């Protein structure tokens, strides 16, 4: 049973992630009053990319992207999807927070060997924006962990299934609002689509990726979308009892995020960080103080 879960859960995440990528292009197109590509377009892109004979800058260039995608796949194993969660008892939220580092680290290392300053600037922007959203995100996560007195995400989902969604739990409302405010930054959609920025830094870390490298990077992007939304649904929207409700909740959140993506332009890095360190941080700080007062 366990082995089946370990195989099924990354596959499900991959399918849903790719579906989300295709759905995003279709919905954006429809918002722009045009037809848009078919929803299976990312699959076509990946097939085409795997057939191209790319160029490699060295050993680390190859290994970095493999490490990045492997990190994303491993992270899926720790996230509960409905009632599928293979590695639930191996460290909890802290492991999730830190395995989330493997993906950008892998891309940063492989891009670094590409020796292109566009890549380096893209990575520096990625790290700066990550520092930006980590401040309110850590406050929100600590608030939840203190409120439910556990560090295990499966436990948090279970408590929400038994009581109510954390977003509807009045003391946690401010933290929920703060998380919604930083969700576009975590997912890397506009107005925080700063890392890719094709017009500014020639797609940042992916500037020297071709062929299979870009295919793996696309899959990694799909998985990071999945992980970002799945984390939010698990922590604030109660997870779910079965995968179908879980994916439905993820779909609703994703479509709302897409609407914000369609409407807003891109911020500069320091504007983004100033925003992230101002209102979401203050709101999440207020949320944490409320929880501490209640616990006394």
């Amino acid at each position, binding site marked *: 049973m366990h082995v089946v879960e370990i195989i099924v859960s990354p596959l499900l995440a991959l399918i849903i992630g790719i579906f989300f990528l295709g759905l995003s292009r279709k919905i954006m197109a429809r918002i722009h009053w045009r037809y848009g590509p078919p929803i299976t377009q990312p699959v076509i892109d990946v097939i085409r990319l*795997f057939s191209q*004979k*790319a*160029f*490699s*800058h060295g050993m*680390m260039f190859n290994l970095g992207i493999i*490490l990045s*995608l*492997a*990190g994303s*796949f*491993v992270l899926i194993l720790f996230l509960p999807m409905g009632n599928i969660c293979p*590695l639930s*008892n*191996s*460290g909890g939220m*802290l*492991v999730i927070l*830190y*395995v989330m*580092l*493997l993906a950008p*680290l892998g891309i*940063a290392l492989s891009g*670094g*060997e*590409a*020796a292109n*300053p*566009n890549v*380096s*600037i893209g*990575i*520096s*922007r990625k790290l*700066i924006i*990550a*520092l930006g959203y980590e401040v309110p995100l*850590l*406050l929100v996560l*600590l608030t939840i*962990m203190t409120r439910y*007195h*556990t*560090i295990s995400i499966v*436990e948090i989902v279970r408590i929400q299934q038994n009581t109510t969604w954390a977003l509807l739990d009045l003391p946690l409302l401010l933290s929920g609002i703060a998380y919604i405010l930083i969700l576009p930054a975590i997912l890397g959609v506009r107005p925080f689509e700063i890392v890719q920025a094709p017009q500014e830094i*020639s797609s940042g870390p992916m*500037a*020297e990726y071709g*062929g*299979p*490298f870009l*295919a793996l990077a696309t899959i990694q992007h799909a998985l990071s979308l999945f992980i970002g939304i799945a984390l939010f649904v698990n922590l604030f929207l109660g997870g779910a009892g079965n995968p179908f409700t879980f994916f439905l909740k993820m779909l609703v959140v994703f479509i709302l995020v897409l609407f914000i993506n369609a409407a807003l332009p891109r911020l*500069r*890095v*320091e504007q983004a*960080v*100033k925003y992230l360190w101002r209102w979401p941080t203050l709101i999440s700080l207020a949320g*944490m103080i409320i929880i501490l007062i209640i616990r006394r």
Partner: protein
Amino acid sequence: MSLDLLLIVAFSGALLTYVFGKISSKMRNAFGVVVSLALVVMVALLYGQTEEKIFYFGFLNLPLILRTNMLAWFFAISVSALGLLCIVFSLSYMKGRERGDFYYLMMLLINGAMLGIVFSGDLVSFFIFWEVMSWSTFLLISYNRGKALFAGMKYIIMSILGSVAMLIGMLSLYATYDTLNIVTLSTLISSASSGYLLFLSIIFCIAFAIKNAVMPLHTWLPEAYAEAPSPFTAVLSGMLTRMGMYGFLLIMYVMVGAARVLNLGPGLFKFNYILAWLGAVTIVIPTFIAMLQNDAKMLLAWHGIGQGGYMVLGIAFGTSLGVAGGIFHTLNHAIYIVLLFLSVAAVQYRTHGERDLNSLGGLIKKMPIAFIGGLLGISGLIGVPLTNGFASKWLIYKTLILEGSPFLAFAALIGTWGTILSVFKFLHNMFLGQLPEKYQDVKKSPFSMQLPIIILSFAILLFGILPGIPLKVINAIGVSFGFESLNVTFWGIASDTGALNTINIFAAVLVGCLVVALLFKIGPKATPIAQDDNYAAGAPVPKDKYHYTVDFYNPLYRMITPYLKDFIDAFYMKLAGWTQSLSNGVRRIYTGYVGHYVMYIVLFLASLIFIQLKWSPW
């Protein structure tokens, strides 16, 4: 296997190395390595033994006691093993440098002094070895002359202030209890008043906080690390600064005892809370200052201060997980910071001493082993899962979250993110990016430099995947302090409020990498290309100019630099300046003119007569 033999081997080995150096440098190198190796073996043989040796020298009726227990063994094995690796590294690094005999003498002397500190059973021998360590560190920091002299001076003055504080504490203890034997004191002290215990804790902890570089007593550290010769900086940051940690553990948990030390202090301002908050501040601020540094060794030095904050936070927090996390972090930090400084030293060796991050780059193809050392070192420093840094930080985070201190947990977690930014800049500016023209002919490191790097990288992964190996020892230490035992298994910690299972994570990452590598093989094999066949919008890639290193986090710097001015250092320098001008003024009493001296004597006698006439005290 006895302790005095160990110390005799350590110190005489140091002196003999110097003597052999006068004969031949090869003999000196070989003998230095043999002595360090012998020390490691002897310490390893002491595992699990608790013995005590008492020596009477007739000095003030105070016996000098050497004893070993689990805590002492833990620190001793780290000191001797890391010392051995640094000496092996120095074989190539110091080749052809001047005053090599002096360097090896000092390295081995410091090694022996640190072993003496951890094995001493009474405060007098502790103080003696502490002082030996302090002045030999000063001598070795100033090895390079120039700026290093100033850095060494800053270090020794602050260290002496700490030693004076420790001496005051020792005198007070001797006056009250008439003994300085640590074991006897720990039983006698438990009946003392809370105020006296608070005074003792504070006065001793000032000394140890100066040595361990807890804010605001940290200002000696960055320049001392940056100007010292690099293999010695590795020893300095790995073990020497952590002698302060040993001191904290000695005072807080061996002498005063866990039961009393966690209740000292009035109401909300408990002693260990204040110490934990100082640790938290020490985590956050130096990590962000590290991001602004452009010198590789200064960057790592500020991280040394920051990681010391984790250790202080862990042990000051006072739970069994916290103390275990703090002690474990001491070991892990030693391993990866030594590895990082050795990587920097390897690069310096080949690039003729270049430390400026703005002018290095692209050395990954030329020095792959140094790169792997740097990569694993920064992974440990960040705390990526499967490295040892993650295991110890996980313990600290878990206890902070579950005991309801989310602000301290937040400080610890945001410290990690600051670390990620600054060490990625470190790795990128040294090894990734475009290779400058002047380093096209850089060769790989020699084998005696590669060996310590490989061993330490392996240790990082080993302790990350199987943290149970050191945790068993640390658990024994925690139990000896009176904390409850942790449920330590080979691969992590089992518990009902969230377990840590690193074997699962390791297996998952391994399988994940294999699967993705197979997926990667679906596509056609990629053609290898040169580094300058790069996207530059159709233009030729400019040599030496297609590299992004300066102001790596420019948008962030503009935001945070105004808040990170070093007030504390400026304050200390002002204090030093006033002291200097005061001394300058006082020295003018000695004019060299005998008439003035006669006048001083006459005035002094006149004032004595006046006092006698007016108030007749005598």
